């Protein structure tokens, strides 16, 4: 078995939250472990407040974890004083390229800045290197003189991806990179990520709330709810044999162009509880149609749910017939 490129071990992130006059600590990410192999595309899905974006920012070194450790390429990945060489190997792509690109700079300036700051190419080779980067994301060199507002949303996201590729990263962390785009443009960006993995051997952590996109792109999926991973497994296992009631609820809630089969419907009711007042026991139980007494008493851990390798779910009913129909 190949060694993972990235391992998260029992990572937790806490934020201070103002609540009723006092300040209390909220766990946005709670004891999460995850492994990403080289050249793998791992999807992290969940609704708002699930902690998926916070987890992405921990990997990229933008948020300091309160506990746990990160291992990258068999070496400890520190948050503080992360060496430049290591920072270069992990890059992030954000949801809204309009705010991650500098509105006053042309594409040429934005790419040249990265290339020269990191001294990646000789000054006279910057122009050629910039064009080559644009070619990698299928943009014409003619866009070099455009500013962000002169480009379409899809073009902006491609420029943002080109800029992150400038430092030749091994791992790309993409936080909802297609959510703000029109559907006709979205497909092209999804295909671009698949192509970058194939051509450059990139590893990708793909954060999304759109499960359909995740199914098309990812090898493996982790489903998060209220700061925890509640189910993880190969993409096919998650979509064809979802086990956790929350995963099933998410799948049931997606509108279909062609209403048909899929897993048996198991919709959730109500809204996620507040992180400030987590329910006792299983944090999904307040919305779970299958909850019973035990769920309020103890919090289920991730257990293997099928003979499929690494298909895990955190549910007291995980092994029972009620969930595996």
């Amino acid at each position, binding site marked *: 078995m190949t060694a993972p490129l990235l391992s998260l071990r029992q990572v937790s992130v806490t934020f201070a939250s103002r609540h009723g006059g006092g300040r209390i600590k909220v766990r946005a990410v709670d004891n999460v472990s995850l492994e990403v192999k080289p050249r793998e595309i791992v999807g992290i899905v969940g*609704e*708002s407040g699930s902690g998926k974006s916070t987890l992405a920012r921990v990997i990229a070194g933008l948020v300091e974890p309160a506990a746990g450790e990160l291992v990258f390429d068999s070496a400890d990945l520190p948050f503080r004083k992360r060496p430049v060489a290591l920072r270069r190997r992990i890059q992030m792509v954000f949801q809204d390229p309009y705010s991650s690109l500098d509105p006053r700079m042309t594409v040429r300036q934005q790419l040249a800045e990265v290339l020269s700051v990191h001294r990646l190419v000789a000054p006279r080779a910057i122009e050629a290197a910039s064009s080559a980067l644009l070619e990698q994301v299928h943009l014409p060199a003619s866009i070099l003189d455009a500013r962000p507002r002169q480009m*379409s*949303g*899809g*073009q902006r996201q491609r420029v943002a991806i080109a800029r992150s590729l400038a430092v030749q990263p091994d791992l790309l962390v993409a936080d909802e990179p297609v959510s703000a785009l*029109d*559907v*006709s*443009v*979205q*497909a*092209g*960006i*999804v*295909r671009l990520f698949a192509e970058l993995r194939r051509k450059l051997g990139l590893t990708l952590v793909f954060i999304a*709330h*759109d*499960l*359909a*996109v995740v*199914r*098309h792109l990812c090898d493996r999926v982790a489903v998060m709810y209220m700061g925890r991973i509640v189910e993880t497994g190969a993409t096919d296992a998650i*979509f064809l044999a979802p086990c956790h009631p929350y995963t099933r*609820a*998410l*799948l*049931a*809630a*997606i*509108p*279909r*162009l*062609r*209403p*048909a*089969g*899929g897993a048996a419907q198991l*919709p*959730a*009711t*109500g*809204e*996620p509880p507040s992180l400030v007042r987590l329910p006792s026991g299983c944090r999904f139980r307040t*919305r779970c149609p299958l909850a019973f007494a035990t769920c309020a008493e103890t919090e289920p851990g991730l257990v293997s749910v099928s003979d499929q390798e690494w298909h895990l779910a955190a549910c007291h009913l995980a092994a029972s017939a009620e969930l595996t129909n």
Partner: protein
Amino acid sequence: MPPSPRPPLLEVDNLSIAVTLPGARRVTAVEDVSFSVDAGEAVGLVGESGSGKSLTLRAILGILPPGASVSAGRVRFEGKDLLAGNEAELRNVRGRGITMIFQEPMTALNPVVRVGEQIVDAARGKRGWSRKVARAEALRLARHMGIPDAEACLSLYPHELSGGLRQRVMIAAALACQPRLLLCDEPTTALDVTIQAEIVALLASLRAELGMSLLYVTHNLALLAQLCRRVEVMYAGRIVERGLIADTFAAPSHPYTRGLVRATPDVDSVVDTLVGIPGSAPPLGARPTGCSFHPRCETATNACRTGDFPLRPLGNGRASACLYAERIGGLAGAGT
């Protein structure tokens, strides 16, 4: 075809909307758009950003943003011309006749008024109820909307609620007027899928119970397939295809609709690879000549580059603006 017993609830005829761009340039953002909504019917208006779908919706209610104005056409609601009427007449239609819900409830709700009062005000203003009756109605609506702990929730301010709850409060305020037509401008786009599913189910049940009509604007084709019977597809300010959703999405007769369907990822299978539409929609005021879609169209020929491409009826309530509609839709021929 036998004549329909009643005229449509809403008729939009040859509507054009002009907007002012920076530099005082006037351009046509919506051109010659016509469609209708029958009583109790749910119609979807689909298109990407900049297609003019939201402007069309706002023009119906007379709430176009500054710089935009109707340059031609008529909007009739229950036979009454809304664009010719004065502001006072329009105010009568707004609320009990037509109400609109928006994508971002935070901007539609008053931040300094408790949400319960906002529902009560809507109900009192439009239905002339006493405060007491309106309060009871607000509570009933909130419960119907699945708002948990409704009584306590109604005494909160908008910022104290989650996005999903705010959206429900806004819908409750809209429904307190018991409109005959509800205009929906992507009301679930900002919400999580589980909440979206609840709101869509709620709108569907309200349509069934109250006979309320829906005109639903979105870019999400799958969402429309759950909620609406008919669809109007807009591209670059014009309607390019219309028809029953079941037929239209199964066998689109315009390459743009076909592109949208292909670009929509299917969560139930990965058999089809995702295909995007090359290029991007033209910016306002830079619409290509001929068919607006031809620069992005794989079927386009020289004949598509010039001339006018109005919506042509294809029979069975379907229409397409494509020169090759019959071939693309796999139809035998027009009018058969």
